[in-house]
């Protein structure tokens, strides 16, 4: 039994077990984590901007509360998904094998 109050729980962010290395230089494994996190953060910013633009178009003004409350329609979600797919394709452009 753990007696930490439920409102003070901080879930573990690290995984128990040995982390595999895929590259000869472990720095590249670390860089891949940075890269993928950054890829995600750029997409988050872009989506926030998209919400702001849509709110401005619809209402002519925007507040942080309105951004939080914004619920994308299925059509908006489909547009965003198409953007996410194309965005990843642009970033992860593999060189031809040598």
């Amino acid at each position: 039994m753990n007696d930490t109050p439920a409102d003070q729980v901080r879930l573990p962010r690290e995984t128990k077990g040995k982390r595999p290395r895929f590259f000869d230089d472990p720095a590249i494994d670390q860089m891949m984590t940075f890269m993928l996190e950054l890829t995600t953060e750029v997409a988050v910013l872009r989506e926030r901007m998209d919400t702001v633009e849509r709110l401005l178009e619809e209402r002519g003004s925007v507040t942080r509360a309105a951004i939080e409350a914004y619920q994308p329609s299925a059509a908006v979600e489909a547009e965003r998904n198409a953007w996410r797919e194309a965005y990843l394709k642009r970033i992860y452009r593999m060189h031809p094998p040598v």
Partner: protein
Amino acid sequence: MVAQASEIPVPNIEELFRPTHDERARQGMVSFIRKLAIIDMRRALKEDYESRIEPRLDREGRKPADWQTIEKAMQQEHIFRFYSAVRYNAQEMCYLSVQPAVERALPAMVGLARDLAVRNPAGGSLRLNPDLELPKYITALDVHLTPGWVHSEHTADDVAQGAVVSFGGKVFTGQHPYRKRPGVVGESIAYWIGKKYPNFAPRRILDLGTTSGKNLLPYCTAFPQAEVHGIDVAAPVLRYGHALAEHEGLAAHFSQQNAEQTDFPDGHFDLIVSSFFFHEVALKATRKILAECKRLLAPGGLMVHMELPDEASVSPYENFFWNWDTHNNNEPWYTAFRAEDPLALCAAAGFDAARSFKLHIPDIATFGEERHARFMRGELPSPAHGAGGWFVFGAERG
């Protein structure tokens, strides 16, 4: 069993999860990174293997290659290294992207689950055993790279890992073409059973390693007359699953037990199922669990387990692909389980070899009923495991 509609709606524990705008955006993006790895990069990897690497192995006299030779060759390739790195990081990010919202929701989630465990408005139940010893294959590593896996308890009556696994799983499958909805494996098996054994009417059903019952609940709807049970060694996922089932009006009975040795009487169940289960347990435990299935199954009963296809059922390349998870997804028993013939495992547990089976069945959400009928008539093959089909093995008990 499906309970009578209650007057007062039972709150949904999943509605307490309220990610911020940016957290939702992050989860949405992570689903696409996961899809990039498991669909797009996986396809590119196979094409590269077939067009360039396999011919090279051939020239070097190393073909036909077994999966270990393929793995060794691939580990030197850029494309495999990047595929692996993207896949590994995406897996971690699925869980990381939902944890903050789970932390905020936790007090309310714990409160709701606690209340529903007392009231059981749908007529299900939750039976926990705090003295149950957790097997080492559960606690040694965080399986699937889920920090805390299914069993860690961070507060009294904790449900956090249930929420992390459930919402992380939604991010994980968010853009997967063959994981259309939670529980689709249970749905597909139940549908196949209905067609294969049209007169089969199980009185009691048991799901092993049920976690939060995602693949258990479809049996409540498919066999509404049956009493439906799910067992797992991990309390947080059981509490969470029980709360979900009660919200959905499904009377499912969750109990904290080790499938190697349960407290149910002999011949108690007509149908025993599991999904994504055996490859996570030690091989010694697998043998004990199948023997326990034999004990629990009533005469005329049926056992169907959805699992990864065994080594002998697929090509060396596919074996190389599947076994990636062993070291890279903290699933140490994966390769050892896949090396076994499931029919031999059933035979060793006392099942009649002539009444044991292994086959691929179609994923009902993507295959459709009309094509399923043609599959049943032997006119169409099932798609491969994870690509529109599911591999199952099991036995009929005479």
